């Protein structure tokens, strides 16, 4: 009986710890996350600007790796750092909001550079929006 009670107590404690950790879990760092899809910025832009619903079915809510050329880097006072990937001949781009934990890595990159960024696709307004972005080592 004592073993049974002890087992229940252990289970209750384990359940409590799990619930606490799960409740307080932070959004995942995408540095350690596998992408669901890999695509070039140009392909992503053309798909979203022509077939938004179809593009959403493929990419919305997923972690996506996008390869492309940096056409703009924006630093804002409220620590929002954004990199726009794409092609200057296109009206839209892929707007990558860099994860605050990885903002320092932005200093290593320049306009015109080709690179790969991994981010969480949230959809399309004027640009395709990726959040919590990280730089992918090539």
């Amino acid at each position: 009986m004592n073993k049974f009670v002890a087992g229940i107590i252990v289970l209750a404690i384990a359940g409590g710890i799990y619930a606490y950790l799960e409740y307080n879990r932070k959004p995942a760092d995408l540095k350690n996350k596998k992408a669901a899809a890999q695509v070039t910025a140009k392909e992503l832009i053309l798909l979203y600007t022509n077939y938004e619903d179809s593009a959403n079915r493929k990419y919305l809510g997923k972690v996506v790796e996008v390869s492309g050329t940096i056409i703009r880097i924006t630093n804002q006072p409220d620590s929002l750092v954004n990199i726009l990937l794409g092609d200057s001949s296109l009206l839209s781009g892929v707007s990558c909001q860099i994860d605050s934990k990885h903002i320092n890595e932005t200093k290593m990159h320049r306009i015109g550079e080709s690179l790969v960024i991994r981010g969480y696709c949230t959809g399309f307004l004027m640009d395709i929006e990726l959040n919590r972005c990280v730089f992918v080592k090539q």
Partner: protein
Amino acid sequence: MNKKIGLGFLWLTISFTAVAQKKIFTKNGIISFTSETRIEKIKAINKKALAVIDLEHNKIEFAVLIGGFEFKKALMQEHFNENYLESDKFPKALFKGSFNQPNVSISINENKTQRIQVQGNLTLHGVTKEIAIFAIITVKNKIISAQADFSVLLTDYDIKVPSVVSENINKEVQINVNVPSFSEM
């Protein structure tokens, strides 16, 4: 919807540097919402709202991606997207409105603070409702900023909260919008 640029949604602060342009816009509007009960306070923020103001016709449009709201806790963010706002089905919230008060005029060249009423349609979770909200628009040194706070009832937009967490989530959510800077279109 495909090729259209979605514009619209909840709004609050707009700043723009400009000369005499008729339309101004930003891709970096900040929209946050807060739900507070005696048990829990939930807050999320989206710093990439799109907003356009047509100064000639007194029209305002906002758009925000639901999946772009960030929470401190992953579990809240997952429930928000998957269970409440269903961002896979309804990825955007939109607001299209206008201000038609006869005494309102916004000019980059005139420093002024005005409280204006904006009426329009808010589309959220696939439901469109007419709303009226107040905003403060300030012009100072050729920078225009606008500010507003309002609330939405979850039931108005068919957003269902499971009974098990009904005490944790306020049925009336406070919305704050803040757009730091606008550019000429």
